């Protein structure tokens, strides 16, 4: 069940979420954590081992876990609740919506296996969680890129009051952003590199892929900018409009999510609302239940691999 993510030779950090949550919990005694039989699979065991009295094992019962998180928040605590992205978004949606979001309670929902990060098939592939959650008022949505991003985002959401859904890479997580002058800021996009031909607007693990693709494309004299958008909601509308208004660049939104209802469509809508009309393309998963199989094969098949990104960008530029 532990799906390892191809780090493309990058160094990795072990369980960045669990360790960052421990740091946050040292500073804030109100932080508690819950899981639905997946602490070891969401790196929450690191917190549970360090803070056994602040950890609630709820069993495989996602609905009551999230209702109970709401109850803890009502009593003044800041619960972090973990499961897989599919089970929060599909199974527990109503409980998150009405018990947590409607009252804007201080609950952080942190979920492993976002998008296509397991070869187990649709039961575990969370291809539409961003679409599901973007429609929920009050909810902040984060899709961090790597270990550094996860650590900084964990501290940021612990300090932020209000409900948050965060996608999580777990286990040995690639660490790429530390090479850049990067600080996670809630609700802000960050330009990681500039370029004249292509503007990647990327989120989650696709920022990693976009950075690698940009390197490869440089060999073909294609100059790519990479704008990292870890906060899906509220979207940094100004930052995105500003970057996309620079004329002459192909805008490519890259996300580990269905092409429906994720970052791509969110960006497209914001550009249209402001009468900004660059050439626009999406790198995203198809509107399908995806195959089972080995993860690298699936990333290739569905266009999330670096090679697939490079090939498609070249094709778009030729057209």
């Amino acid at each position, binding site marked *: 069940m532990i799906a390892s993510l191809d780090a493309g030779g990058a160094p990795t950090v072990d369980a960045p979420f669990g360790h960052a949550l421990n740091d946050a919990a040292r500073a804030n005694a109100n932080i508690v954590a819950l899981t639905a039989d997946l602490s070891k*699979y969401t790196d929450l065991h690191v917190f549970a081992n360090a803070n056994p009295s602040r950890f609630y*094992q709820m069993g495989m019962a996602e609905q009551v876990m999230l209702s109970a998180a709401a109850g803890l928040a009502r009593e003044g605590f800041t619960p972090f609740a973990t499961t897989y992205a599919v089970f929060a978004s599909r199974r527990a949606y109503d409980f998150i919506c009405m018990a947590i979001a409607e009252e804007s309670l201080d609950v952080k929902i942190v979920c492993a296996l976002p998008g296509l990060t397991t070869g187990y098939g649709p039961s575990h592939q969370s291809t539409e969680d961003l679409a599901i959650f973007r429609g929920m008022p009050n909810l902040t949505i984060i899709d961090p890129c790597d270990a550094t991003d996860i650590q900084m985002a964990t501290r940021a959401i612990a300090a932020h009051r209000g409900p948050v859904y965060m996608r999580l890479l777990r286990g040995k997580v690639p660490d790429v952003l530390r090479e850049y002058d990067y600080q996670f800021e809630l609700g802000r996009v960050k330009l990681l590199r500039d370029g004249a031909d292509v503007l990647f607007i990327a989120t989650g693990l696709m920022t990693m892929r976009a950075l690698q693709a940009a390197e490869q494309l440089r060999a073909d004299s294609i100059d790519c900018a990479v704008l990292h958008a870890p906060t899906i909601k509220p979207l940094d509308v100004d930052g995105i409009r500003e970057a996309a208004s620079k004329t002459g660049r192909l805008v490519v939104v890259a996300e580990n999510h269905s092409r429906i209802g994720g970052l791509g469509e969110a960006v497209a809508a914001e550009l249209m609302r402001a009468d900004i009309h660059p050439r626009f393309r999406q790198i995203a998963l198809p509107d399908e239940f995806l195959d089972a199989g080995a993860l690298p094969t699936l990333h290739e098949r569905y266009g999330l691999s670096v090679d697939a990104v490079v090939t498609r960008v070249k094709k778009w530029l030729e057209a």
Partner: protein
Amino acid sequence: MRDVDIKQTNAAGAADTVSLKQRAYRIRRHALRMGEVQGQGYIAQALGFADVLAVCYFHALTYRAGDPEWEGRDRLYLSIGHYAIALYAALIEAGVLPEDELETYGGDDSRLPMSGMAAYTPGMEITGGSLGHGLGIAVGAALGLKRKQSTSLIYNLLSDGELGEGSTWEAVMSAAHHRLDNLIAVVDFNNQQADGPSQDMLCAEPLEDKWRAFGWHAQRVNGNDIDALTCAFDTARNHDRARPRAIICDTRMGKGVPFLESRERNHFLRVDAHEWAQAIDILDRANAQS
């Protein structure tokens, strides 16, 4: 009259017990060979549940190996999609799947994905894996079979972990409300979940009493005792009151391969390359001696 291809209605006699043991041994062996292909997986569940599956496919179920969608079959739902490796092993033993296909287990474009899905595999009735679905679907199928005046039974295989899901208990109430005497729930109580022993996750006991209080006929048996299982399945099938039936099977994960039985964190086992042959050898030798 039911159209019967493979059917033994009575509690197994001594000769049958030997052959069911053989079946269980062979199911374990197929599962280990698939495990070896991936080097890891839900192999401890498959070993623990092999006796139950042997009794299902070679004692209880009515089916046609060459026609897995035959209308007159008993339906067997694998709610626990991650037990796919166990069901593939049983389907191979039952002749629904060819044995050489086990080499493809979990590979790209295989009909045997790591999590059970209906569209991929002959004999896999539902797409499980998002746990807590099977029993509810079984309620509807049981209603549908009754509407069609079918005498087929529906078996839903679920895990102790699934007893944590609210949807399971909605289905438990619904089945009793609709007096579904054609529905048999088979619970694998292996006292294991992803994070540890089930009793530390969400206490499900007292289990038999709970199912009874919800209006079911409930039995609890040693799920690694073939004679006890055949009796329990016969009792469940022949019970004459209009209520659904549950068989709670206490099983031992890794059963039959002592060094895997005693391994910790056996929800998702990693097994070293050389240990697979060792495990198969242990099974073979135990079988030769019996």
